[in-house]
């Protein structure tokens, strides 16, 4: 009898979430998949007929009449991947030493700096991006300062370039990289490092053979958490990037809100989704066994 009651309670706990996520999460994802194979209507709607040229436009087969193969889509997709990869790398280079430094501080200061790193997480994303718009503008703070010192003769063109986009993404993603890294660095077994030195290993050897393997889960975790939202990001390139900073997310947004070609937008976002699923499956499943 106890077992039957258990099952009732379990069903009561899980039914609402199953229904909710089933209807409002899984079904919308399936709708994207379905739409990516539908025919775009002439005036922005869709026709319920199978159509594979949405993908053909991207990958190189097109009917040549309604849809034309444009290598630009693959190029933008590649650009999104490389921007996201550079963002991950820069976040890693910036955060790793600082995570080390914070973990070695006295308890009091540790808490202060951990608070300082989580604070931007609580403040608005759009506000933090807007700040960089002010700083990077041709008449912005950076140029005024550099011109003032006499370091440059004419304003630098940073805003609306890929540099600005990557800078903005690194800036908003830093907390997501820092926290998993810090958790890994803070759990380092210091006696192993001492032992490595005592046995005559150089600093570099110690780092490569002792510190790096121990912090690898944090590095991989942080990288995945930063990479995924970066690939599909459209806000940062929208605010800070120009035509050369356009990313896959901007393409999707245009298809939905200005070009009104929903099936093509759905096909593009299927690509973003598959990149994400590949990354997740590759890295997360490999890390699992270590968690327990």
């Amino acid at each position, binding site marked *: 009898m106890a077992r039957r009651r258990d099952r009732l309670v379990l069903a009561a706990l899980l039914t609402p979430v199953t229904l*909710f*996520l089933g209807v409002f999460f899984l*079904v919308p994802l399936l709708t994207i998949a379905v739409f990516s194979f539908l025919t775009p209507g002439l005036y922005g709607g869709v026709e319920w007929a199978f159509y594979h040229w949405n993908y053909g436009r991207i990958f190189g087969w097109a009917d040549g009449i309604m849809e034309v193969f444009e290598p630009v889509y693959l190029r933008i997709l590649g650009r999104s991947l490389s921007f996201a990869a550079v963002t991950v790398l820069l976040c890693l280079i910036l955060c790793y030493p600082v995570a080390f430094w914070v973990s070695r501080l006295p308890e009091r200061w540790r808490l202060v700096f951990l608070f300082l790193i989580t604070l931007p997480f609580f403040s608005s994303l759009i506000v933090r991006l807007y*700040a960089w718009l002010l700083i990077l*503008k041709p008449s912005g703070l950076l140029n005024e300062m550099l011109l003032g010192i006499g370091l440059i003769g004419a304003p630098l063109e940073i805003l609306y370039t890929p540099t600005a986009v990557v800078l903005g993404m690194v*800036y908003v993603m830093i907390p997501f990289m820092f926290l998993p890294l810090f958790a890994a660095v803070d759990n380092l077994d210091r006696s192993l490092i001492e032992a490595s030195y005592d046995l005559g290993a150089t600093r570099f050897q110690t780092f490569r053979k002792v510190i790096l393997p121990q912090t690898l889960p944090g590095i991989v975790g942080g990288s995945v958490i930063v990479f995924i939202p970066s690939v599909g*990001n459209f806000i940062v390139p929208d605010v800070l990037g120009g035509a050369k900073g356009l990313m896959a997310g901007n393409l999707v947004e245009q298809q939905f809100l200005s070009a009104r070609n929903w099936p093509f937008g759905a096909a593009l976002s299927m690509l*973003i989704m598959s990149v994400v699923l590949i990354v997740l499956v590759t890295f997360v499943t490999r890390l699992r066994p270590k968690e327990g």
Partner: protein
Amino acid sequence: MRNPLGWLLLTLFSLLFFAFIYAPLAVIIGYSFNANPINMMIWDGFTLDWYRGLFGFADRTADPNSRALYVESTDQLIAALKNSLIVAAVTTSVSTVLGTATAIALARYRFRLRGFYRGFLLLPMMMPDIVLGIGLLIFFVTLGMKLSLLTIIIGHCTFLTSYVFIIVQARIAGIDPALEEASADLGASEWVTLRKVLLPQLAPGIVGGALLAFVISMDDLVITYFIAGTDSTTLPVFIFGMIRRGVKPEINAIATLLILASVLIAALGLWLRSRKIDK
């Protein structure tokens, strides 16, 4: 540390890192008091005009063109803030209940689909915002649902349930089930055990999850951008629109107020946590 010079360099690097994080915020706060209306990056004296304009107290005798802008955007701003608060409050309640129930089910019951649910609950959090946003947009439009606050709330609940689940799950992992077993042995029903034994111990995790959900819901831009109707704009979407139309000094004032609010919320979170440790 074995190497004092190395430590010094590391300290220097880290302090620069924190300067990099905070300088942009300082720039906004500083320039929100700048009187120069033409180029807001050139300091032209202290003013509170942009704040006054924001609250609808712009000087009536001032330049008529600018006044029109202030009055109009003040109403929209307040409407957007109200929408954001309604969405965040409802979303927080719903996703806290759903996330907590799931965390309890996965931690306290053994069943076949446990592994599946654990992965499934992480997916909405890991899915890029833009994919979830357009998925919901297509879904709502195909069903013929009007885009409104309700659609935004539904959208937020899908991924915030995951966040609450993660936080509560971390807390429940550290709770000894022996107390609940004792309660059951003493004849308490499942419901009483849940309410009187498990939930009080879980409370810090639930509050933490709810706080996180509230903050993320208030700040969500991408998903809301796609599924907000014309009359259901939230604060981040409104600010995004303002920035797209061009940089204006009032944005500095709004941004400063938002930074202030976030500091207060973060401090509240910290205070709640320290209070729990004291107990």
